[in-house]
């Protein structure tokens, strides 16, 4: 039985640029927007695009990611002939298998892909906030009889030198690829989203690993090799909201942009739902002393303080006299009385004691997961 397309979400990187936030959990499992984790956007895109088989490749701290994804039921990925599988390194009779790059990670999990026997493989990364119809990309890929399609987005020429830039001909065929060019010739940046014909990619990887094993990375090695060997490589132009949340600043920014639900991302659109694990929490409660402006609040919260331009995630408790401003409070965080928090990200289950002040000016302050700041008062 043949599957049309399998998605591989490469969630392997440790995301060290997120500091404390990825010390104990994998980047795709980092909370976002009150009731989501970063990977929810990619997983929901898959489901909404009619992709029923998703492999999530990870090697760092998988516990939170594992328990978030669970059996896939939250995204409808638990049915017959459909599923989400977490793929971790393992030990085999020829040694331990750690992932050394995006392409290497796909090579190491070839047996998973082969078991589904797909025509196409969609490569995704688990750390972008966006909504995208991969089905449309696949249709274009088929129309153009491409061997590889690379999703690209227009960026400003100033930004372009931070990205892999695709130079295309008038038919959107990619004729040149430059990694972080000093003088970009085009404004089309790779989003790290690829559709490969599996048969071909499989041969290329098998071939490489039978010899020198140099095909470690898609951007650095595989795409250049495809171009060099004259494969049909096409750009797929994506338009819309797309944000890499790989740094503290960009994660905070993306959250701040998210507050306005009517933004370009349009999360409320019921035709393209973003699914997440259901946390089974009661509705949120605003006390007599609570005050909320320009903010998002979700189930399980208790708010006795003042919230300005912030996001409160599931199960957050804010006591009276406290002010939260321009901040993201992650699930389960407990904030005491008369606290002031500004321009901060407070990690999951962190505890902030009474009278604490968290505000480091321009920089975004990060409180780690389970971190305790100040004295933890007894629950009253």
């Amino acid at each position: 039985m043949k599957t049309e397309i399998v998605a591989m979400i490469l969630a392997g990187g440790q995301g060290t640029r997120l500091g404390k936030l990825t010390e104990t959990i994998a980047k795709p499992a980092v909370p976002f927007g009150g009731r989501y984790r970063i990977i929810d956007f990619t997983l929901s895109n898959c489901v909404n695009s009619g992709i029923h088989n998703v492999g999530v490749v990870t090697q760092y701290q998988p516990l939170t990611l594992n328990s978030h994804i669970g059996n896939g039921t939250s995204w409808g990925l638990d049915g017959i002939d459909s599923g989400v599988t977490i793929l971790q390194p393992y030990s085999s009779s020829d040694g331990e298998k750690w992932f050394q790059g995006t392409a290497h990670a796909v090579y190491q999990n070839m047996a998973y892909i082969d078991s589904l026997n797909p025509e196409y493989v969609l490569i995704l990364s688990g750390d972008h906030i966006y909504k995208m119809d991969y089905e449309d990309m696949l249709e274009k890929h088929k129309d153009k009889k491409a061997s590889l399609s690379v999703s690209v987005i227009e960026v400003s020429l100033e930004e372009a030198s931070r990205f892999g830039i695709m130079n295309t001909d008038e038919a959107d065929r990619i004729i040149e690829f430059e990694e972080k060019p000093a003088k970009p010739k085009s404004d089309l940046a790779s989003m790290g989203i690829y559709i490969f014909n599996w048969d071909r990619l499989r041969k290329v990887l098998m071939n490489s690993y039978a010899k020198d094993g140099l095909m470690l990375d898609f951007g650095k090695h595989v795409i250049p090799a495809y171009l060099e060997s004259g494969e049909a490589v096409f750009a797929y132009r994506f338009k819309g909201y797309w944000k890499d949340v790989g740094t503290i600043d960009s994660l905070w920014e993306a959250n701040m942009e998210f507050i306005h639900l009517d933004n370009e991302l349009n999360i409320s659109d019921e035709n393209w739902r973003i699914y997440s694990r259901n946390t089974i929490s009661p509705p949120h409660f605003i006390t007599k002393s609570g005050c909320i402006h320009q903010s998002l609040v979700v189930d399980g919260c208790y708010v006795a303080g003042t919230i300005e331009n912030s996001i409160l995630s599931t199960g957050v408790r804010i006591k009276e006299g406290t002010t939260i401003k321009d901040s993201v409070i992650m699930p389960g965080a407990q904030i005491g009385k008369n606290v002031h928090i500004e321009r901060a990200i407070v990690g999951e289950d962190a505890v902030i004691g009474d009278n604490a002040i968290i505000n480091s000016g321009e920089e975004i302050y990060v409180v780690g997961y389970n971190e305790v700041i100040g004295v933890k008062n007894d629950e009253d």
Partner: protein
Amino acid sequence: MKTKMSSNKMCAILGNLENDENLGTLTKKRPIATLPFDCKYRLVDFPLSSIANAHINEVLMLFDEKDRRSLMDHIQSGKEWNLDALQNHFFFYFYSNEHQAESFGLEYYGNLLDYLQKSKSQYTVVLGSKMLCNIDLRILLRNHKGQGRDITAVFKKVDSSQTGPHDRIFAINEPNGLNLIDAEHASPNADGKYNLCMDIYILETERLVTIIQQAEKQKKAEILPQLLKNILGDLQVNLYEYTGYLSNMNSISAFYQANMDMLNTTKQNALLYSNQKIYTKVKNEVPTYYSESSDVKNSQFATGCLIEGQVTDSIISRKVVIYNDAVVKNSILMPGCRILPGAVVEYAILDKNVIVDANTAIKGTAENPLVIEKNAGIRENVGGGSE
């Protein structure tokens, strides 16, 4: 290998045993079971969660034919309450509503017996949705097994305000002398409380089979909880006192009060934050957005709302929109209500998808909250505090 038809297994019968004529239009097109409660629940979520938390894996849902649609829409495959797991068996039986007729009894008892005789559970628990509570059925079973009586009935000591004319009160006289009395004729305990029968029973499945076979022979036509109530006098009854949060949904004001109770942290914690989670239908709503102008106090909110106006002492359900300069006070807004700019809602219960036009007022009173029917569009002032 010991057989697992073992001493810790219960099956559950969940039915609409309740009189709902006192809930007005709230139960015009739905049973009490699917009445929305506290922003995101329906009343049947509570007994279903008790069943799920006790890992009961045989469930029979007994409902009136007219309630089918409303129930099926909420419960669907039963996934949220684990009803669809491999080892679980759940069945619906919808009976036609002429329950006086002998033919009704024959069919009804036949279905019950069929279910119970196929069951692999030594005990059966019977419960409903009208008595809103969060009961641990495993503790109930342990209590029943420890007492060695024919049947265990659950009660709670309540004030007279919590009893209605259709309710029954346990009057406990002598060691085994138990009386079940209509609430209107009951006198209180020494402490002024009444022992309200919560219509939750547990007994051996075999005994229940015998009871139903008897009823069948006698050509009765009573639904199960009614039947049990009426024969309690003939049985050795163990009374189990429930001490958690209870609301007896026997009137509009009881329903209103139960929702308002959820603004009391102690009561809310007792019902919703106990050891036993309350499961409900998963909706994947977006977070609730509070605008720059929003002004909210002492209120509870589900997700998916957009709040620009003023909300005080209220219960706001999923996907409610409260526009700029609108005011909502002491009210319950069910999912999908839209309160347009400048509108005022006080002491009201707005059923699903009610739209209140701009600058329109709905005003009930604390004693008589106004109920607005589902899907209504309110274009003129209603009430005015003097109804």
